[in-house]
């Protein structure tokens, strides 16, 4: 079966951009796009060991009469077949369940959006929880549609980073776009990373690996190409640590305006 | 002994997705270790027994289901050898001579084999026409060796074998197989070869063992190629 990406459609100009992003993503790697046009302001996603309630803000429900039409025409114009998801199961009458068997899901940086948070600087707590529990990678697109022409992996050496790297290789193969790997040396040495790569049998697959030995990650991220889809693994921190120190995912997404594809701890890659 | 989800799925003869669901639902004993699920074989065997679920233990599974015998016609014919100039006036004497001279495995009781062959001929003739007969016992012999053998036997003069097309028989293939499955396989291959008129004509010349076997090998590669091609084509 062809892989599928779930997109929650927002019938606003901003929603159009994210849908265009999703369409481009699907077309580039040969995935089907399944759009959900919400009719209620919230829905539940039941994961293996968590249930996440996603509360959408009112802009998702605005002008419902044109929503499906708009989505159809955007998807069509991108050369994809429009597929829509209609919820079958409801936990309560206004609370549909959205299945979690998809292969990718597109989440705007924050689903509950205050317009100030659309841009940079914030990944909503719901998005983070989806990333934590999902078995699929989460696609966090640009606020404005921009085609990407290469792939960049931020490789930190953890098990999740290896997963992200594997995913990136697959996407690079599917899209035909080149893959660059970036690593910021922190406590580990270069040899440690080499060992991780070797243990996972990935040494032949990495062709372009930039290792930052000096400088801050913040500054070094400038090297990531502007037209790259950035893929990274998210490590499951506890809530307290996250509140205290923030997460690397958060840091990276504040600095990089690129579209992100985040591989969570439960991702099956 | 630790097993992974995929191994357990094969052992239980279930898709991996079912095993994953069972883990989630708590229907199967499992341990989590560093984010991976591991099963203990011993415990799983016990569990399967208690539940009455078939569980092929790992060692059994390694052997796999009875490997599909890959017996070729050539190897069986080589084992059985080629006899030339065998004499006889009727079915019984020919068979007697054949059984006595054929290079058979020592475990085979020749007397019994002869009786069994006659018994089979009484049921219906094994003379399949075009001067060829394929005598064989109705069921595998009690002490048949594990490898099948086909003894090719050219007669001194063609004789009346009561064949289906009434033509006199000039060559006999004595087939001894350890199982009906192998018997069928060899029979199918042999009759495929015998459909070719050129091959029959070739046989009429009582060719010696070397050329005979290489000719048969040639035909067999043809069969295998056809099969292979059709598999490729239909991408099963």
């Amino acid at each position: 079966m062809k892989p599928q990406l779930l997109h929650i459609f927002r019938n606003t100009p901003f929603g159009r951009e994210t849908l265009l992003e999703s369409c481009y993503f699907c077309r580039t790697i040969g995935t089907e796009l399944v759009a959900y046009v919400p009719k209620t302001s919230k829905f539940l996603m039941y994961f293996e060991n968590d249930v996440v309630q996603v509360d959408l803000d009112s802009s998702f429900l605005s002008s419902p009469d044109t929503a499906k039409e708009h989505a159809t025409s955007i998807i069509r114009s991108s050369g994809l077949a429009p597929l829509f998801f209609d919820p079958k199961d409801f936990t309560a009458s206004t609370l549909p369940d959205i299945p979690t068997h998809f292969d990718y899901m597109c989440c705007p940086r924050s689903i509950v959006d205050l317009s100030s948070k659309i841009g940079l600087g914030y990944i909503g707590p719901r998005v983070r929880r989806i990333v934590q529990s999902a078995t699929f990678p989460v696609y966090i697109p640009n606020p404005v549609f921009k085609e990407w022409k290469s792939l960049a992996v931020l490789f930190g050496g953890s098990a999740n980073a290896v997963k992200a790297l594997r995913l990136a290789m697959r996407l690079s193969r599917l899209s035909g776009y080149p893959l660059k790997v970036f690593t910021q040396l922190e406590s580990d040495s270069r040899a440690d990373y080499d060992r991780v790569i070797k243990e996972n049998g990935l040494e032949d697959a990495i062709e372009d690996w930039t290792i930052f030995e000096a400088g801050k990650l913040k500054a070094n991220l400038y090297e990531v190409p502007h037209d790259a889809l950035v893929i990274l693994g998210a490590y499951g921190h506890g809530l307290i640590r996250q509140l205290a120190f923030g997460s690397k995912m958060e840091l990276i997404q504040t600095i990089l305006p690129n579209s992100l594809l985040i591989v969570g701890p439960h991702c099956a890659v | 002994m630790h097993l992974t989800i995929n191994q357990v799925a094969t052992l239980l003869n279930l898709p991996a997705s079912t095993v994953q669901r069972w883990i989630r639902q708590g229907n199967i004993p499992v341990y989590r270790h560093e984010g991976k699920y591991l099963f203990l074989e011993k415990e799983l065997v016990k569990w399967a027994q208690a539940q009455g679920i078939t569980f092929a233990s790992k060692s059994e599974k390694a052997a796999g289901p009875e490997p599909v015998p890959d017996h070729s016609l050539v190897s069986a014919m080589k084992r059985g050898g080629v006899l030339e100039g065998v004499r006889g006036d009727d079915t019984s004497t020919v068979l007697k001579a054949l059984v006595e001279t054929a290079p058979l495995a020592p475990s085979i009781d020749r007397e019994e084999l002869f009786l069994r062959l006659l018994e089979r001929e009484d049921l219906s003739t094994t003379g399949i026409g075009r001067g060829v007969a394929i005598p064989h016992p109705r069921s595998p012999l009690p002490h048949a060796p594990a490898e099948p053998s086909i003894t090719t036997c050219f007669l001194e003069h063609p004789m009346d074998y009561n064949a289906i097309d009434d033509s006199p028989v000039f060559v006999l293939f004595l087939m001894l197989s350890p199982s009906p499955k192998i018997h069928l396989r060899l029979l199918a291959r042999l009759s495929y070869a015998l459909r070719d008129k050129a091959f029959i004509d070739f046989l009429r010349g009582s060719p010696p063992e070397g050329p005979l076997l290489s000719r048969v090998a040639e035909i067999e590669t043809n069969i295998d190629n056809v099969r292979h091609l059709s598999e490729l084509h239909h991408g099963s």
Partner: protein
Amino acid sequence: MALNVKVPSLRLALLRAIWRIDERLLLIVFAAIVGTGAGLAAVILNQLLFHIHEALKPLRFHWYAFILPACGAGLSALFLGHVMKEGAGHGVPEVIYSVCKRGGLLRLRSSFSRLISSALTIASGGSAGPEAPVVMSGASIGSNIARAFSLNDRQRTTMVGCGAASAISAIFNAPIAGIIFSVEVILGEWTPINLIPIGIASVVGTEVSRLLQGNLIPFSHRQFHASLLDILASVGIAVLAGLSSVLFTRLLNGTIRKSHELASPDWLRAALGGASVGLLGLAFPSVLGKGYDVVSTIIENHYQSGLVLVALATLAKIVATSLTIGTGGSGGIFAPCLVIGSLGGLAYQRGLVACWPAVPWAEEGFFAMLGMAGVMSGTLQAPLTGIFLIVEVTGSYEVVLPLILVSFVSATLCHHLQPVSFYYGELVSQGHLLRPRTDARLLADLNILELIEKDCIVIHENMRLRDMIPIIEQASRDCFPVEDSKTGDFLGLIHLNDIRPYLFNPGLHDAVIMGEIMDVNVPRVAPFDHMKDVLQLMDETHSWSLPVVRRDKFMGMVSKGTILDRYRKELIVQTH
């Protein structure tokens, strides 16, 4: 490398040892934690109710008191809908849905949201009970503790049951009723593995409540002396209770449906409902609030009103509860059931006395108690819960015989008139009531992607019959999906049976093309179809196997043979 292998096995051994001490022991420990949490939730709600009620008391005697329930219900709906953002619902059906379909996963916010919203609704005078909210909280506490410890579905469901049991036990000081409710209504299964933790949770919850609030039997009373005649008369109260339950259930469902057709925002809807209840309360003060005081008065034979007024009050309570809960107020139907039952029982007794004044009938409290059991069993369609709850909250084991009689007669009658109870109504209509080890549950667990068989040989429409012969030779199945040779779309199916007659006719080998003889009208299923529908389709079309087609592409076959095999395995592992 050697080290690497050894460490996990050591750790595994340790894990195994811990697990060996046993899943059950672990569940008991968790159950105690959940029981404490749910017990605390019940105590908190009780205290909230008490204090808000006390605070509002001075306002109650003014003519404008009917505004109170309106404000309470409105605020409660606002709080649930906009602060907590819960899809408002009754609560218990949501817990049952999660147990049936989602392995007991519940949202964390549910563990406290209903406590506050129902406190607002009930303490302000809304006619509802505090049980459903505590059950929801308890269940959610159980679910989230299970989630924090990564328990599996089965264990998590047990924890949800523990939470519900402990909540009911704590709020009524009735441990057995808690256990029975959890098993009978929430989980719908009774296994040694889940019963023990539920019992523990129930004990712990009750104890928490007793420690904090004292060991009180909610409706204590004198001993009743029931004669044989009274027991016979109890059949009448059973019928009456059954009918009231049916009326109650229908009115409740009707109000829910009707009120949702009013397009007003949910808080306004709830407020309007509350206001109507308040107005009703001006005439019949006994309909307001959870009404335990009413029940106590009746059981102690102190209720003053005459037959007609009592009968009207019964009806008024039914209407008030429907209005409160049906319009979106937050609360349960346990307490209203008790009030309706006791009022109904009282009316029945007054009626008996009026008709046969010479007979020494049992006291009012006796019939009130039977009425409570009857309405409870009838509305929930859970007779055991009704019996044990009434026995425990009134502390009167001596009347257990008529209680059993009334409960079962009423439950049977209700089941006949109204096949699904209020809790199950929506679940049944959507096919979500999947009790463990039932056919529906097994079929819901299996899905096509797990059953699909991919060992089919796909052929093309332009193939000649001759080309089929070598394919049939190798095929292990007797049907062959046909695809369009250009687009790869699924066109139809060829059964070996269909082509058998032509197979042995060499003249046809080149004359017949697969596209001509395939079955194009073959029914097909999609990969996410429910197994129930798939089997039904198989029955309707008398087929043993069906092609799985997704967006015109053939994926594989599902067959009855495989379904039987998996169904049996599923049944085995679920029965374990």
